[in-house]
């Protein structure tokens, strides 16, 4: 690829931290974390959670920052080039393995943008009071199901979800086309403080709710009450480790691309830790204090358990939609509270989506010399075309298939490859020195053996466990409705086409570069 090309740069350190935190803080912080905590032992979940943060999250995050900044020094903004650089160009397979760092964020970007657009839609519905009057869970489910189904016009016209999807894509395209400092960094500098403000306001509102079915404190008790027996259950430890991937956006390739816009003299140890800490604050302090406690107040502990079992969208959209309608005070205030919640989720989503889009844009710019605007336009058109499949086929589980292979299992595969390359091929001694280049924080020496042995063992265990318990049944489509199987195969086929296209494009980019050199 291209050596020593002038590359875009972050404008300020706080802008970089907020952009990285924006990448990490997403829907998972406010929807997935409380559900996981409540389903996996309550307070005791936090023990494996913090252990995972210390031995999996933090080391992998530093490694991804390190790989990204190292690759950026050679003009690589994406993982194929970075893996190639880690092996000093001696292992041809490395760049092809790195295609996962292009493919996964692209795939996740496409379906995640569609999901984020729901939050924009529900922000709008909150302001207009469109769902007010549907004050039980079944009615709200029907409202959401009609929105998600292009062919169900019982509540919404099929075009409604499409309009919000187009609006979200257009906004993302506008931000991305303005570049790293002028677009992504500005979005983070404006969006992240608003996100935290909204989260604080909502947490304060939830904690001061009058008891209905239960009190807000009973809601906190539901999340935090320890079940000691769960500490010995492997599934709880693996759930905590899995949550760490989602919450820190690890194993995807987005951190790498953002870090590639740093100079080799810029600190990554303290800056990286700061983004991780910011994310944990959003998750543990704010994420655990809003949705589940609010659901417990209105549905009681058993009702909230049922909601939590229904998954993040049952909690975040259906249950919260009912909650807002039951808030004491004038309806306008209730609508505004709903607007705050869905806007918070929308901001959390778009600051992550711009990160997911960045590797593909960077690859087109650096591999094929495309102008940024040209690359953004191409990506948005692809996201629209492929995203339409999600809009049309959502009720068949089309999106869930992508979410599992690219947004869940694939993350662990990618992380296992990258830590092997970093600790064993590049070498942990060299890697350790690389992480400390320009460092403002000396990483405790204990992390050297952790990065070399503990984190990889943790990752491989997670990979094997998930592979056996989840990936195989998922691959065999166990429990799927036979009527949906054809759509799920189509879903997989589209993913495979994108993966193969990524491999072909990497090969073409390298050939192009070799041709230029010759």
């Amino acid at each position, binding site marked *: 690829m291209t050596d*020593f090309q*002038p*590359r875009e*740069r*972050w*404008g*300020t*350190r706080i802008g*970089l*931290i907020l952009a990285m935190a924006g990448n990490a803080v997403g829907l998972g912080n406010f929807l997935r974390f409380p559900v996981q905590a409540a389903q996996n032992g*309550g*307070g*005791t979940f*936090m023990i494996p959670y*913090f252990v995972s943060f210390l031995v999996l999250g933090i080391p992998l995050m530093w490694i991804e920052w390190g790989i990204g900044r190292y690759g950026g*020094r050679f003009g690589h903004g994406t993982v194929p080039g970075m893996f190639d650089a880690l092996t000093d160009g001696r292992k041809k397979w490395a760049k092809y393995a790195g295609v996962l760092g292009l493919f996964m964020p692209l795939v996740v970007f496409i379906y995640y943008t569609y999901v984020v657009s729901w939050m924009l839609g529900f922000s709008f519905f909150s302001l207009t009071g469109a769902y007010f009057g549907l004050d039980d869970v079944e009615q709200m489910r029907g409202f959401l199901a009609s929105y998600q189904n292009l062919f169900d016009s019982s509540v919404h016209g099929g075009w409604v979800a499409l309009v919000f999807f187009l609006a979200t894509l257009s906004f993302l395209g506008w931000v991305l086309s303005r570049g790293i400092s002028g677009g992504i960094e500005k979005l983070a500098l404006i969006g992240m403080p608003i996100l935290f403000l909204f989260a604080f306001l909502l947490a304060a509102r939830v*904690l*001061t709710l*009058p*008891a209905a079915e*239960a*009190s*807000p*404190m*009973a809601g*906190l*008790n539901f*999340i*935090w*009450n*320890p079940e000691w027996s769960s500490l010995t259950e492997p599934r709880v430890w693996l759930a905590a480790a899995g949550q760490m991937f989602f919450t820190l956006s690890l194993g995807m390739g987005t951190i790498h691309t953002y870090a590639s816009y*740093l*100079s*080799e*003299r*810029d*600190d990554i140890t*303290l*800056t990286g*830790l*700061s983004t991780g*800490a*910011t994310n*944990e*604050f959003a998750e*543990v*302090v704010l994420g*655990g204090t809003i949705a589940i406690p609010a659901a417990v107040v209105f549905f009681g502990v058993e009702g909230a358990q049922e909601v939590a079992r229904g998954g993040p969208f049952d909690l975040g959209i259906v249950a919260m939609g009912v909650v807002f309608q039951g808030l004491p005070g004038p309806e306008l205030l209730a609508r505004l509270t709903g607007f705050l919640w869905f806007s918070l989720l929308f901001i959390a989503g778009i600051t992550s989506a711009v990160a997911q889009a960045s590797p593909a844009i960077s690859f087109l710019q650096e591999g094929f010399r495309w102008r940024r605007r040209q690359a953004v336009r191409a990506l948005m058109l692809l996201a629209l075309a492929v995203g339409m499949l999600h809009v049309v086929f959502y009720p068949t589980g089309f999106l869930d298939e992508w979410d599992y292979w690219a947004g869940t299992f694939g993350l662990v595969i990618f992380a296992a490859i990258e830590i092997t390359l970093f600790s064993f091929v590049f070498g942990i001694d060299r890697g350790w020195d690389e992480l400390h280049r*320009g460092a*403002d*924080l000396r990483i405790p020496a204990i992390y050297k053996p952790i990065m070399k042995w503990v984190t990889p063992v943790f990752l491989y265990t997670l990979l094997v466990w998930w592979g056996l318990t989840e990936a195989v049944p998922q691959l065999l489509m166990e429990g799927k409705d036979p009527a949906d199987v054809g759509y799920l195969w189509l879903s997989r086929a589209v993913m495979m086409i994108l993966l193969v296209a990524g491999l072909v494009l990497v090969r073409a980019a390298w050939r192009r570069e070799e041709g230029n050199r010759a």
Partner: protein
Amino acid sequence: MITGEITSFALGFMIVSMASVTLLVVYCYSRILRGGRQLDAEADD
């Protein structure tokens, strides 16, 4: 109003967990602010 329906264990876990991440945030940002170091503006690579 917040009413007492939380066990002391749960309250303890919650406070310790939230305090830990809050302290980590304070530590990181105070070090960044004290250091006063910005990104490398001279970078030309």
